[in-house]
Protein backbone atom coordinates (compact mmCIF):
# COMPACT_ATOMS: atom_id res chain seq x y z
CA UNK A 1 0.00 0.00 0.00
CA UNK A 2 1.28 3.44 -0.87
CA UNK A 3 1.12 6.37 1.49
CA UNK A 4 1.82 10.03 0.90
CA UNK A 5 3.82 11.81 3.56
CA UNK A 6 3.24 15.52 3.59
CA UNK A 7 5.15 17.58 6.10
CA UNK A 8 5.37 21.23 7.01
CA UNK A 9 8.66 22.06 8.70
CA UNK A 10 11.02 24.90 9.50
CA UNK A 11 13.34 25.75 6.60
CA UNK A 12 16.44 24.21 8.21
CA UNK A 13 18.62 21.15 7.61
CA UNK A 14 16.96 20.47 4.28
CA UNK A 15 20.02 18.92 2.67
CA UNK A 16 20.41 16.56 5.59
CA UNK A 17 16.73 15.55 5.50
CA UNK A 18 16.97 14.83 1.77
CA UNK A 19 19.98 12.54 2.18
CA UNK A 20 18.69 10.77 5.29
CA UNK A 21 15.32 10.05 3.68
CA UNK A 22 16.96 8.81 0.50
CA UNK A 23 18.86 6.30 2.65
CA UNK A 24 15.55 5.18 4.20
CA UNK A 25 14.25 4.30 0.72
CA UNK A 26 12.49 7.50 -0.30
CA UNK A 27 13.08 7.54 -4.05
CA UNK A 28 11.64 10.94 -4.77
CA UNK A 29 10.19 14.00 -3.11
CA UNK A 30 8.95 17.51 -3.82
CA UNK A 31 9.75 20.61 -1.89
CA UNK A 32 7.80 23.84 -1.85
CA UNK A 33 8.23 27.09 -0.02
CA UNK A 34 4.94 27.87 1.62
CA UNK A 35 3.51 30.20 4.22
CA UNK A 36 1.38 29.12 7.09
CA UNK A 37 0.44 29.24 10.73
CA UNK A 38 -0.54 26.68 13.34
CA UNK A 39 -0.74 26.69 17.13
CA UNK A 40 2.12 29.20 17.02
CA UNK A 41 -0.25 31.72 15.39
CA UNK A 42 2.63 32.93 13.24
CA UNK A 43 4.68 34.26 16.12
CA UNK A 44 8.34 33.42 16.28
CA UNK A 45 10.03 32.29 19.47
CA UNK A 46 9.73 34.84 22.25
CA UNK A 47 6.65 36.48 20.80
CA UNK A 48 3.46 36.03 22.73
CA UNK A 49 0.71 33.94 21.20
CA UNK A 50 -2.45 35.98 20.73
CA UNK A 51 -5.56 35.96 18.63
CA UNK A 52 -4.01 37.89 15.78
CA UNK A 53 -2.70 35.56 13.11
CA UNK A 54 0.39 35.95 10.93
CA UNK A 55 1.79 33.76 8.17
CA UNK A 56 5.35 32.49 8.56
CA UNK A 57 7.56 30.91 5.88
CA UNK A 58 7.59 27.08 6.07
CA UNK A 59 8.83 24.26 3.91
CA UNK A 60 6.46 21.65 2.59
CA UNK A 61 7.93 18.24 1.71
CA UNK A 62 5.86 15.66 -0.12
CA UNK A 63 6.75 12.07 -0.90
CA UNK A 64 4.98 8.82 -1.73
CA UNK A 65 6.37 5.68 -0.08
CA UNK A 66 5.56 2.05 0.69
CA UNK A 67 3.58 1.66 3.92
CA UNK A 68 6.34 -0.45 5.51
CA UNK A 69 8.79 2.44 5.63
CA UNK A 70 6.30 5.10 6.77
CA UNK A 71 7.15 4.77 10.47
CA UNK A 72 10.90 4.95 9.85
CA UNK A 73 10.53 7.95 7.54
CA UNK A 74 8.44 9.74 10.17
CA UNK A 75 11.06 8.98 12.83
CA UNK A 76 13.84 10.46 10.68
CA UNK A 77 11.88 13.60 9.83
CA UNK A 78 10.97 14.13 13.48
CA UNK A 79 14.59 13.70 14.58
CA UNK A 80 15.84 16.30 12.14
CA UNK A 81 12.95 18.77 12.21
CA UNK A 82 12.38 18.85 15.98
CA UNK A 83 13.46 22.29 17.18
CA UNK A 84 12.24 21.71 20.73
CA UNK A 85 10.14 24.84 20.38
CA UNK A 86 6.65 25.65 19.22
CA UNK A 87 6.40 25.78 15.45
CA UNK A 88 8.49 22.72 14.53
CA UNK A 89 5.74 21.67 12.16
CA UNK A 90 3.50 18.69 11.42
CA UNK A 91 3.53 15.50 9.39
CA UNK A 92 0.45 14.15 7.64
CA UNK A 93 0.14 10.59 6.34
CA UNK A 94 -2.41 10.15 3.56
CA UNK A 95 -3.52 6.98 1.75
CA UNK A 96 -2.76 6.98 -1.98
CA UNK A 97 -5.27 5.25 -4.22
CA UNK A 98 -2.95 4.84 -7.18
CA UNK A 99 0.12 6.30 -8.87
CA UNK A 100 0.80 6.48 -12.62
CA UNK A 101 4.18 7.25 -14.18
CA UNK A 102 3.30 9.17 -17.33
CA UNK A 103 6.29 8.23 -19.50
CA UNK A 104 5.95 4.48 -19.08
CA UNK A 105 2.35 4.28 -17.88
CA UNK A 106 3.61 2.09 -15.03
CA UNK A 107 1.19 1.75 -12.10
CA UNK A 108 1.34 1.53 -8.31
CA UNK A 109 4.50 0.42 -6.56
CA UNK A 110 6.44 0.23 -9.84
CA UNK A 111 6.26 3.98 -10.15
CA UNK A 112 8.18 4.71 -6.97
CA UNK A 113 10.99 2.21 -7.40
Amino acid sequence: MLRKIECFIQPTELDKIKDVLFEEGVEGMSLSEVQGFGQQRGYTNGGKINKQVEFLPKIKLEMVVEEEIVDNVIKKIVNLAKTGKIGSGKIFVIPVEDVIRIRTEELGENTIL
Partner: protein
Amino acid sequence: MAKDNVWDMTLKRLDDTMTILDLKPGIIKYLKEPRKVVEVAVVVKMDNGDIDIFKGYRVQHNTNRGPAKGGIRYHQDVTLDEIKALAMLMTWKCSLTGLPFGGAKGGVAVDPTLLSERELENLTRRYTYELIPLIGPEKDIPAPDVGTNAKIMAWIMDTYSIAKGYIVPGVVTGKPIELGGSQGREEATSRGAVCTIQAALKILKINPSNLTVVIQGFGNVGGNAAKVFFDQGFKIIAISDISGAIRNDKGIDPYKLSEYVSVNKTIAGYSEAEAIDPSELFKIKCDILFPAALENQITKDNAPYINAKILAEGANAPTTPEADPILKDNGVFVIPDILCNSGGVIVSYFEWVQSNIAYFWSKREVNLQLRDIMEKAFYETYNFSLARNLDMRKAAMALAVNKVANAMKLRGVYP
Protein backbone atom coordinates in the same frame (compact mmCIF):
# COMPACT_ATOMS: atom_id res chain seq x y z
CA MET B 1 -0.51 -11.90 49.14
CA ALA B 2 -4.19 -12.42 49.87
CA LYS B 3 -5.10 -13.55 46.38
CA ASP B 4 -8.34 -15.21 47.38
CA ASN B 5 -10.08 -11.92 47.91
CA VAL B 6 -9.68 -10.77 44.30
CA TRP B 7 -13.25 -11.92 43.60
CA ASP B 8 -14.59 -9.99 46.63
CA MET B 9 -12.56 -7.01 45.51
CA THR B 10 -14.05 -7.15 42.00
CA LEU B 11 -17.55 -7.42 43.45
CA LYS B 12 -16.81 -4.45 45.70
CA ARG B 13 -15.75 -2.43 42.66
CA LEU B 14 -19.05 -3.37 41.03
CA ASP B 15 -21.00 -2.37 44.17
CA ASP B 16 -19.18 0.99 44.22
CA THR B 17 -20.20 1.50 40.62
CA MET B 18 -23.82 0.70 41.35
CA THR B 19 -24.02 3.71 43.64
CA ILE B 20 -23.34 5.89 40.57
CA LEU B 21 -25.71 4.13 38.20
CA ASP B 22 -29.44 3.91 38.60
CA LEU B 23 -29.97 0.18 38.07
CA LYS B 24 -32.62 -2.16 39.42
CA PRO B 25 -31.51 -4.72 42.06
CA GLY B 26 -32.28 -7.61 39.68
CA ILE B 27 -29.84 -6.31 37.09
CA ILE B 28 -27.17 -5.84 39.72
CA LYS B 29 -27.69 -9.43 40.87
CA TYR B 30 -27.50 -10.60 37.27
CA LEU B 31 -24.25 -8.73 36.55
CA LYS B 32 -22.59 -10.28 39.59
CA GLU B 33 -23.33 -13.84 38.50
CA PRO B 34 -21.07 -15.52 35.90
CA ARG B 35 -23.12 -17.07 33.12
CA LYS B 36 -21.15 -20.32 32.95
CA VAL B 37 -18.52 -21.78 35.28
CA VAL B 38 -16.72 -24.94 34.25
CA GLU B 39 -14.17 -26.88 36.28
CA VAL B 40 -12.28 -29.72 34.62
CA ALA B 41 -9.68 -32.26 35.72
CA VAL B 42 -6.78 -31.97 33.31
CA VAL B 43 -5.18 -35.41 33.24
CA VAL B 44 -1.61 -35.53 31.98
CA LYS B 45 0.74 -38.46 31.54
CA MET B 46 4.04 -37.11 32.81
CA ASP B 47 7.46 -37.89 31.33
CA ASN B 48 8.26 -40.24 34.22
CA GLY B 49 5.28 -42.40 33.22
CA ASP B 50 3.15 -41.35 36.17
CA ILE B 51 -0.23 -39.63 35.84
CA ASP B 52 -0.84 -36.17 37.25
CA ILE B 53 -4.05 -34.17 37.47
CA PHE B 54 -4.32 -30.37 37.35
CA LYS B 55 -7.40 -28.27 38.02
CA GLY B 56 -8.58 -26.32 34.99
CA TYR B 57 -11.30 -23.66 34.77
CA ARG B 58 -13.20 -21.65 32.21
CA VAL B 59 -15.62 -18.95 33.27
CA GLN B 60 -17.90 -17.01 30.92
CA HIS B 61 -19.04 -14.02 32.88
CA ASN B 62 -21.34 -12.33 30.40
CA THR B 63 -22.29 -12.74 26.74
CA ASN B 64 -24.88 -10.01 26.28
CA ARG B 65 -22.77 -7.91 23.94
CA GLY B 66 -21.10 -10.72 21.99
CA PRO B 67 -19.22 -14.00 22.34
CA ALA B 68 -17.12 -14.42 25.47
CA LYS B 69 -13.48 -13.38 25.22
CA GLY B 70 -10.61 -13.80 27.63
CA GLY B 71 -7.20 -15.27 28.27
CA ILE B 72 -6.03 -18.57 29.64
CA ARG B 73 -3.63 -18.44 32.56
CA TYR B 74 -1.16 -21.15 33.62
CA HIS B 75 -0.03 -20.38 37.14
CA GLN B 76 0.33 -22.46 40.29
CA ASP B 77 -1.86 -20.04 42.30
CA VAL B 78 -4.85 -20.10 39.92
CA THR B 79 -8.15 -20.40 41.82
CA LEU B 80 -11.74 -20.36 40.64
CA ASP B 81 -12.35 -17.07 42.44
CA GLU B 82 -9.47 -15.44 40.61
CA ILE B 83 -10.73 -16.69 37.23
CA LYS B 84 -14.25 -15.47 38.01
CA ALA B 85 -12.91 -12.04 38.90
CA LEU B 86 -10.76 -11.80 35.78
CA ALA B 87 -13.68 -12.96 33.60
CA MET B 88 -15.79 -10.15 35.01
CA LEU B 89 -13.01 -7.65 34.35
CA MET B 90 -12.93 -8.85 30.73
CA THR B 91 -16.64 -8.07 30.39
CA TRP B 92 -16.02 -4.49 31.54
CA LYS B 93 -12.91 -4.12 29.39
CA CYS B 94 -14.65 -5.22 26.19
CA SER B 95 -17.66 -3.10 26.98
CA LEU B 96 -15.68 0.05 27.82
CA THR B 97 -13.71 -0.10 24.56
CA GLY B 98 -16.85 -0.98 22.57
CA LEU B 99 -15.70 -4.40 21.35
CA PRO B 100 -18.59 -6.75 20.47
CA PHE B 101 -17.51 -9.29 23.11
CA GLY B 102 -18.52 -10.49 26.52
CA GLY B 103 -16.01 -11.51 29.16
CA ALA B 104 -14.41 -14.85 29.97
CA LYS B 105 -11.27 -16.23 31.55
CA GLY B 106 -9.67 -19.61 31.92
CA GLY B 107 -6.81 -21.09 33.81
CA VAL B 108 -4.99 -24.19 34.92
CA ALA B 109 -3.41 -24.43 38.36
CA VAL B 110 0.05 -25.49 37.22
CA ASP B 111 3.54 -24.06 37.27
CA PRO B 112 4.35 -24.27 33.54
CA THR B 113 8.07 -23.81 34.16
CA LEU B 114 8.15 -27.22 35.87
CA LEU B 115 6.72 -29.05 32.84
CA SER B 116 8.61 -30.38 29.86
CA GLU B 117 7.56 -29.19 26.42
CA ARG B 118 5.71 -32.45 25.79
CA GLU B 119 3.92 -32.32 29.15
CA LEU B 120 2.91 -28.72 28.45
CA GLU B 121 1.53 -29.67 25.05
CA ASN B 122 -0.39 -32.64 26.46
CA LEU B 123 -1.80 -30.51 29.27
CA THR B 124 -2.91 -27.86 26.78
CA ARG B 125 -4.50 -30.36 24.40
CA ARG B 126 -6.33 -32.21 27.18
CA TYR B 127 -7.60 -28.95 28.70
CA THR B 128 -8.74 -27.75 25.26
CA TYR B 129 -10.48 -31.06 24.56
CA GLU B 130 -12.45 -30.71 27.79
CA LEU B 131 -13.52 -27.19 26.74
CA ILE B 132 -14.59 -28.06 23.17
CA PRO B 133 -18.35 -27.86 23.85
CA LEU B 134 -17.83 -24.45 25.42
CA ILE B 135 -15.43 -22.59 23.10
CA GLY B 136 -15.58 -21.58 19.44
CA PRO B 137 -15.27 -18.47 17.28
CA GLU B 138 -18.95 -17.61 17.76
CA LYS B 139 -19.08 -18.68 21.46
CA ASP B 140 -15.94 -18.12 23.47
CA ILE B 141 -12.48 -17.20 22.18
CA PRO B 142 -9.44 -17.79 24.45
CA ALA B 143 -6.16 -15.86 24.24
CA PRO B 144 -2.77 -15.86 25.98
CA ASP B 145 -2.40 -14.62 29.56
CA VAL B 146 0.13 -15.15 32.36
CA GLY B 147 2.11 -18.34 31.66
CA THR B 148 0.72 -18.94 28.15
CA ASN B 149 1.94 -17.80 24.73
CA ALA B 150 1.50 -18.05 20.96
CA LYS B 151 2.79 -21.63 20.85
CA ILE B 152 0.15 -22.73 23.36
CA MET B 153 -2.53 -20.92 21.34
CA ALA B 154 -1.40 -22.87 18.25
CA TRP B 155 -1.92 -26.15 20.16
CA ILE B 156 -5.39 -25.02 21.26
CA MET B 157 -6.29 -24.08 17.67
CA ASP B 158 -4.96 -27.40 16.38
CA THR B 159 -6.78 -29.51 18.98
CA TYR B 160 -10.07 -27.73 18.35
CA SER B 161 -9.61 -27.93 14.55
CA ILE B 162 -8.84 -31.67 14.64
CA ALA B 163 -11.98 -32.29 16.69
CA LYS B 164 -14.09 -30.29 14.22
CA GLY B 165 -12.47 -31.82 11.16
CA TYR B 166 -11.48 -28.51 9.57
CA ILE B 167 -9.23 -25.60 10.48
CA VAL B 168 -10.86 -23.02 12.76
CA PRO B 169 -8.36 -20.17 13.21
CA GLY B 170 -10.98 -17.91 14.84
CA VAL B 171 -11.30 -20.15 17.93
CA VAL B 172 -8.35 -18.49 19.62
CA THR B 173 -6.33 -15.26 19.36
CA GLY B 174 -2.69 -14.55 20.07
CA LYS B 175 -1.70 -17.23 17.54
CA PRO B 176 1.64 -17.22 15.71
CA ILE B 177 1.50 -14.98 12.60
CA GLU B 178 1.98 -18.06 10.36
CA LEU B 179 -1.32 -19.50 11.64
CA GLY B 180 -3.42 -16.39 11.25
CA GLY B 181 -2.10 -14.37 14.18
CA SER B 182 -2.30 -10.61 13.86
CA GLN B 183 0.56 -8.25 13.27
CA GLY B 184 1.21 -6.23 16.39
CA ARG B 185 -0.50 -8.63 18.82
CA GLU B 186 2.57 -9.28 21.02
CA GLU B 187 3.13 -5.66 21.93
CA ALA B 188 -0.55 -4.63 21.69
CA THR B 189 -1.12 -4.24 25.43
CA SER B 190 1.91 -1.99 25.83
CA ARG B 191 1.17 0.06 22.71
CA GLY B 192 -2.37 0.59 23.90
CA ALA B 193 -1.09 1.59 27.34
CA VAL B 194 1.22 4.17 25.75
CA CYS B 195 -1.77 5.68 23.89
CA THR B 196 -3.59 6.19 27.19
CA ILE B 197 -0.44 7.55 28.87
CA GLN B 198 0.05 10.08 26.07
CA ALA B 199 -3.54 11.21 26.36
CA ALA B 200 -3.09 11.51 30.15
CA LEU B 201 0.06 13.62 29.68
CA LYS B 202 -1.90 15.89 27.36
CA ILE B 203 -4.78 16.49 29.76
CA LEU B 204 -2.48 16.82 32.79
CA LYS B 205 -0.31 19.27 30.80
CA ILE B 206 2.87 17.30 31.56
CA ASN B 207 5.75 17.96 29.17
CA PRO B 208 6.19 14.67 27.28
CA SER B 209 9.98 14.88 27.16
CA ASN B 210 12.41 13.30 29.67
CA LEU B 211 9.71 11.22 31.31
CA THR B 212 10.77 8.66 33.89
CA VAL B 213 9.08 5.26 34.19
CA VAL B 214 9.12 2.50 36.82
CA ILE B 215 7.90 -0.91 35.65
CA GLN B 216 6.84 -3.83 37.84
CA GLY B 217 7.19 -7.06 35.85
CA PHE B 218 9.35 -8.02 32.90
CA GLY B 219 7.13 -10.64 31.26
CA ASN B 220 5.04 -10.28 28.13
CA VAL B 221 3.40 -7.01 29.14
CA GLY B 222 6.21 -5.49 31.24
CA GLY B 223 8.99 -6.57 28.87
CA ASN B 224 7.21 -5.33 25.75
CA ALA B 225 6.11 -2.15 27.48
CA ALA B 226 9.71 -1.41 28.46
CA LYS B 227 10.69 -1.58 24.78
CA VAL B 228 7.74 0.49 23.59
CA PHE B 229 8.41 3.10 26.31
CA PHE B 230 12.12 3.15 25.46
CA ASP B 231 11.39 3.66 21.73
CA GLN B 232 9.04 6.44 22.73
CA GLY B 233 11.92 8.20 24.47
CA PHE B 234 10.77 7.52 28.04
CA LYS B 235 13.55 6.81 30.54
CA ILE B 236 13.08 3.53 32.43
CA ILE B 237 14.68 4.03 35.83
CA ALA B 238 13.63 0.81 37.60
CA ILE B 239 12.27 -2.62 36.73
CA SER B 240 11.36 -5.63 38.83
CA ASP B 241 10.53 -9.25 38.16
CA ILE B 242 9.93 -12.34 40.26
CA SER B 243 13.64 -12.45 41.25
CA GLY B 244 13.94 -8.87 42.53
CA ALA B 245 14.29 -5.29 41.37
CA ILE B 246 16.95 -3.14 39.68
CA ARG B 247 17.42 0.60 39.39
CA ASN B 248 19.50 2.98 37.30
CA ASP B 249 18.59 6.66 37.33
CA LYS B 250 20.47 7.14 34.05
CA GLY B 251 18.07 4.72 32.38
CA ILE B 252 17.87 0.99 31.67
CA ASP B 253 18.05 -0.26 28.07
CA PRO B 254 15.28 -2.91 27.86
CA TYR B 255 16.76 -4.47 24.71
CA LYS B 256 20.04 -5.19 26.51
CA LEU B 257 18.14 -6.32 29.60
CA SER B 258 16.00 -8.75 27.63
CA GLU B 259 19.13 -10.24 26.04
CA TYR B 260 20.44 -10.74 29.56
CA VAL B 261 17.14 -12.29 30.68
CA SER B 262 17.04 -14.68 27.72
CA VAL B 263 20.33 -16.16 28.98
CA ASN B 264 19.91 -15.81 32.75
CA LYS B 265 16.08 -16.26 33.00
CA THR B 266 15.69 -13.34 35.46
CA ILE B 267 16.88 -9.74 35.81
CA ALA B 268 18.88 -10.61 38.96
CA GLY B 269 22.58 -9.88 38.58
CA TYR B 270 22.21 -7.49 35.61
CA SER B 271 25.38 -5.42 35.77
CA GLU B 272 24.15 -2.15 34.25
CA ALA B 273 21.82 -1.36 37.15
CA GLU B 274 21.89 -1.55 40.89
CA ALA B 275 19.91 -4.22 42.74
CA ILE B 276 17.30 -2.78 45.09
CA ASP B 277 14.78 -4.19 47.54
CA PRO B 278 11.59 -4.90 45.51
CA SER B 279 9.50 -3.26 48.25
CA GLU B 280 11.31 0.00 47.44
CA LEU B 281 10.14 -0.10 43.81
CA PHE B 282 6.84 1.71 44.32
CA LYS B 283 8.50 4.44 46.43
CA ILE B 284 10.74 5.67 43.60
CA LYS B 285 9.90 9.16 42.37
CA CYS B 286 8.84 8.92 38.73
CA ASP B 287 6.41 10.31 36.19
CA ILE B 288 4.79 7.00 35.31
CA LEU B 289 4.41 3.89 37.44
CA PHE B 290 3.49 0.85 35.35
CA PRO B 291 2.54 -2.29 37.31
CA ALA B 292 2.58 -5.21 34.84
CA ALA B 293 2.60 -8.22 37.16
CA LEU B 294 -0.21 -9.88 39.11
CA GLU B 295 -3.20 -8.65 41.09
CA ASN B 296 -3.24 -6.85 44.47
CA GLN B 297 0.19 -5.21 44.26
CA ILE B 298 -0.77 -1.69 45.30
CA THR B 299 -2.42 -1.84 48.70
CA LYS B 300 -3.31 0.54 51.51
CA ASP B 301 0.13 -0.24 52.97
CA ASN B 302 2.30 0.87 50.07
CA ALA B 303 -0.05 3.34 48.31
CA PRO B 304 0.92 6.26 50.64
CA TYR B 305 4.54 6.00 49.44
CA ILE B 306 3.79 6.08 45.73
CA ASN B 307 5.54 9.08 44.22
CA ALA B 308 4.31 8.98 40.61
CA LYS B 309 2.26 11.44 38.59
CA ILE B 310 0.50 8.71 36.63
CA LEU B 311 -0.33 5.16 37.67
CA ALA B 312 -0.91 3.24 34.44
CA GLU B 313 -2.31 -0.20 35.26
CA GLY B 314 -0.71 -2.61 32.80
CA ALA B 315 -1.75 -5.59 34.95
CA ASN B 316 -5.29 -6.62 35.78
CA ALA B 317 -6.55 -5.43 39.18
CA PRO B 318 -3.12 -4.39 40.50
CA THR B 319 -4.70 -1.91 42.94
CA THR B 320 -6.93 -2.85 45.87
CA PRO B 321 -10.08 -0.78 46.50
CA GLU B 322 -8.62 0.48 49.82
CA ALA B 323 -5.65 1.97 47.96
CA ASP B 324 -7.81 4.02 45.59
CA PRO B 325 -8.73 6.88 47.96
CA ILE B 326 -5.11 7.15 49.12
CA LEU B 327 -3.92 7.57 45.53
CA LYS B 328 -6.67 10.09 44.90
CA ASP B 329 -5.69 12.16 47.96
CA ASN B 330 -2.05 12.14 46.85
CA GLY B 331 -2.96 13.43 43.40
CA VAL B 332 -1.88 10.30 41.50
CA PHE B 333 -3.74 10.16 38.18
CA VAL B 334 -4.87 6.55 37.71
CA ILE B 335 -5.41 5.04 34.27
CA PRO B 336 -7.48 2.03 35.38
CA ASP B 337 -6.71 -1.50 34.19
CA ILE B 338 -9.84 -1.98 32.10
CA LEU B 339 -8.79 1.08 30.08
CA CYS B 340 -4.99 1.00 30.26
CA ASN B 341 -4.34 -2.65 29.36
CA SER B 342 -7.23 -3.15 26.94
CA GLY B 343 -4.87 -2.94 23.93
CA GLY B 344 -4.33 -6.70 24.18
CA VAL B 345 -7.99 -7.60 23.77
CA ILE B 346 -8.49 -4.91 21.12
CA VAL B 347 -5.84 -6.43 18.84
CA SER B 348 -7.22 -9.87 19.78
CA TYR B 349 -10.49 -8.58 18.41
CA PHE B 350 -8.71 -7.49 15.21
CA GLU B 351 -7.16 -10.95 14.98
CA TRP B 352 -10.55 -12.63 15.44
CA VAL B 353 -12.02 -10.41 12.70
CA GLN B 354 -9.11 -11.20 10.36
CA SER B 355 -9.29 -14.94 11.12
CA ASN B 356 -13.05 -15.07 10.55
CA ILE B 357 -12.93 -13.28 7.19
CA ALA B 358 -9.59 -14.92 6.24
CA TYR B 359 -7.94 -11.59 5.50
CA PHE B 360 -4.94 -9.84 7.00
CA TRP B 361 -3.99 -6.28 7.87
CA SER B 362 -0.59 -4.58 7.91
CA LYS B 363 1.07 -3.79 11.22
CA ARG B 364 0.57 -0.08 10.66
CA GLU B 365 -3.13 -0.58 10.03
CA VAL B 366 -3.43 -2.57 13.27
CA ASN B 367 -1.56 0.07 15.25
CA LEU B 368 -3.62 2.93 13.84
CA GLN B 369 -6.93 1.20 14.52
CA LEU B 370 -5.71 0.35 18.02
CA ARG B 371 -4.80 3.97 18.72
CA ASP B 372 -8.17 5.10 17.45
CA ILE B 373 -10.10 2.85 19.85
CA MET B 374 -7.78 3.58 22.81
CA GLU B 375 -8.03 7.35 22.41
CA LYS B 376 -11.78 7.23 22.00
CA ALA B 377 -12.14 5.10 25.15
CA PHE B 378 -9.77 7.34 27.10
CA TYR B 379 -11.53 10.58 26.26
CA GLU B 380 -14.97 9.07 26.73
CA THR B 381 -13.90 7.99 30.22
CA TYR B 382 -12.17 11.27 31.01
CA ASN B 383 -15.10 13.41 29.86
CA PHE B 384 -17.51 11.26 31.87
CA SER B 385 -15.26 11.58 34.92
CA LEU B 386 -15.37 15.39 34.57
CA ALA B 387 -19.10 15.51 33.92
CA ARG B 388 -19.93 13.36 36.95
CA ASN B 389 -17.02 14.36 39.17
CA LEU B 390 -15.68 10.81 39.42
CA ASP B 391 -12.17 9.40 39.44
CA MET B 392 -11.05 7.63 36.28
CA ARG B 393 -11.67 4.14 37.66
CA LYS B 394 -15.22 4.85 38.75
CA ALA B 395 -15.92 6.60 35.44
CA ALA B 396 -14.55 3.68 33.42
CA MET B 397 -16.48 1.13 35.49
CA ALA B 398 -19.72 3.10 35.28
CA LEU B 399 -19.51 3.46 31.50
CA ALA B 400 -18.61 -0.19 31.03
CA VAL B 401 -21.27 -1.59 33.39
CA ASN B 402 -23.92 0.67 31.93
CA LYS B 403 -23.30 -0.59 28.38
CA VAL B 404 -23.65 -4.20 29.53
CA ALA B 405 -26.78 -3.40 31.52
CA ASN B 406 -28.29 -1.64 28.49
CA ALA B 407 -27.52 -4.61 26.24
CA MET B 408 -29.17 -6.87 28.79
CA LYS B 409 -32.28 -4.67 28.99
CA LEU B 410 -32.56 -4.53 25.18
CA ARG B 411 -32.27 -8.29 24.81
CA GLY B 412 -34.65 -8.97 27.66
CA VAL B 413 -34.87 -12.16 29.68
CA TYR B 414 -35.66 -15.44 27.97
CA PRO B 415 -38.29 -16.84 28.00
